[in-house]
């Protein structure tokens, strides 16, 4: 049986409700607590963008797929949005939808090749696609993309507006909330049930009249679209874009966030992104550079081995452990 209440990944209804309210309040007041510190505000903005990105990546895993090359979509969304915005002068908040559309189109193309592939092949091919697209961007399309130097991207909100970073932050939080709400709506609908059926047993899903290829493709396109939107948000926040955006790191971050939070749950990527970002920037302020990659890597390995359902399963695990001890004593 598939329990749809587990979509969020947290079993207790109460914790779930309080968790959502707590997160929303935190998202609103956090930048105010720190007295509009620009560094912290920038970290927060990037964190929320990565929550969108990690959630989009994670959306794929509901159908049992995984991608090692989502930087392709993240970067494409960024490039297309930057080009359209600079050429037309339309607000990046609108062009990011175009960027996402371009990413989704390429996602459809990759998806058509990949949906029939199993885990290993899919991982290798998606990994490769990010490199092909990077190569195309710096060689064939260098005229439009500026090659390795990259191009400038219009800012989300002009820096002339008072407190523009704060406005940017709230707008991105709103977008993130809408995207996650949309994912939730999709996952609790019949589509979500079909995803779960395909993930658990493809043969049985087929027997029940579900076409796995169609649903996988749908998941791939949706995931690519919102990764593209996240990419567009990031580069419009930073103000420029270079082919570095297709690097392996950008492909791996959403994986690290989703796994450490909890794969295949809505809360997982959010919790994971927050925890890892705090850890990452905390280590940076301590002056640790290479070693923090090692720490993140170790954390990832340890979580996969000892906490396969991610950090969000930690409260349940602790509760069960304590209950078990009470019984034995």
């Amino acid at each position, binding site marked *: 049986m598939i329990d749809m209440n587990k979509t969020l990944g947290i079993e207790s209804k109460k914790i779930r409700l309080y968790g959502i309210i707590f997160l929303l309040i935190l998202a609103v007041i956090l930048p105010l607590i720190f007295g509009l510190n620009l560094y912290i505000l920038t970290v927060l903005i990037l964190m929320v963008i990565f929550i969108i990105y990690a959630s989009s990546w994670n959306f794929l895993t509901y159908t049992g797929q995984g991608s090692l090359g989502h930087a392709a979509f993240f970067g494409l969304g960024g490039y297309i949005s930057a080009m359209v915005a600079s050429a037309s002068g339309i607000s990046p908040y609108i062009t990011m939808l175009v960027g996402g559309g371009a990413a989704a189109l390429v996602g459809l193309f990759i998806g058509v090749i990949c949906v029939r592939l199993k885990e290993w092949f899919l991982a290798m*091919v998606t990994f490769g696609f990010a490199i092909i697209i990077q190569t195309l961007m710096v060689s064939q399309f260098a005229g439009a993309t500026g090659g390795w130097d990259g191009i400038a991207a219009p800012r989300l909100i002009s820096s002339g507006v008072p407190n523009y970073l704060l406005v940017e932050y709230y707008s991105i939080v709103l977008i993130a909330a809408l995207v996650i709400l949309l994912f939730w709506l999709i996952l609790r609908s019949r589509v979500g049930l079909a995803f779960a059926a395909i993930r658990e047993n493809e043969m049985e899903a087929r027997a029940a009249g579900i076409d796995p290829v169609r649903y996988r493709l749908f998941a791939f396109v949706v995931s690519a679209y919102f990764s593209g939107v996240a990419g567009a948000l990031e580069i419009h926040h930073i103000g420029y874009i270079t082919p570095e955006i297709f690097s392996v790191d950008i492909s791996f971050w959403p994986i690290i966030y989703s796994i450490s939070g909890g794969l295949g749950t809505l809360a997982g990527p959010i919790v994971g992104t927050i925890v890892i970002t705090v850890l990452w920037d905390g280590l940076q302020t301590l002056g640790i550079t290479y070693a923090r990659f090692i720490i993140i890597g170790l954390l990832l390995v340890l979580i996969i081995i000892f906490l396969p359902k991610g950090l969000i399963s930690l409260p349940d695990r602790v509760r069960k452990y304590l209950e078990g001890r009470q019984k034995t004593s």
Partner: protein
Amino acid sequence: MAGGIDVILQVLIWGLYAGCIYILLAIGLNLIFGVMKVVNFAHGELLMLGAYITFTFYALSGFNPYVLLAASVPTLILAGIIIERLCFRPILGTGKLNEIFISIGLIYIIQNAAALIWTDEWRIIHSPYEKITISIFGVNMPLDYLIIIITTILILIALYFFLRKTRLGKAMRATSQNRKGAMLMGINVERMDMLSFGIGAGLAGAAGTLWVVSGQVFNPYMGSIPAIKAFAIVIIGGLGSIPGAIIGGLILGIAENFAIFTLGGAWKDAVSFIILILVLIIRPTGIFGESAE
């Protein structure tokens, strides 16, 4: 394009040499996959370690770098066994995505540990035969390329005899054909896991040494590109097929060098994936692969 047949020969020889390093990597991946049904995405990092171990021993001892295969291969075998025991064994059978993701953790650990130890500068060492070229069919070829090709062939022959003629090799093949059956025949399959991972890592170490002596630059982050190409070869040749890996490696090495020659250097890395995608569209299990599952 200037020249005719001799240019093609030149490119073929470059391709053959490039193919050798990819073949060693891809065979290692295939051995591990055959026995454990695990793809080690951190395989390129093992090549990088092999390169740095060669570099360190060369700097310390000044031996002929080819001799240092005797240092890099055993060290990497040991590293492979440790990685298998600590990381892959605890999660074996818990889902294929987990096995992919644990390699990502390993990539971060190994790359940055190397960056801490050796710094992230690009390094290069010079082979003693660097300036010697020999002429084959009227084409000039660095002596190093010839030695690398011969070394690879010798390693492949040794591997062939190990897998075909020794008890241990036969046990390994039995495990990769049918794990349960092998277990029932009294083969310690967990030891076979360790062994296959060790040999796979050792081959990657050998590839690392050959990478260094051929005068290519290396830094702690260089492993991912050769590894991705090894995956491409594995897919082209079929997952778990060793002859497939050899042919796939040669196809890729040659195609890549033709691409550099005709399309330009920027295409070097992308061409392998274009081939890969074409193969997957036409035959999703690879040219020589039977079935992925």
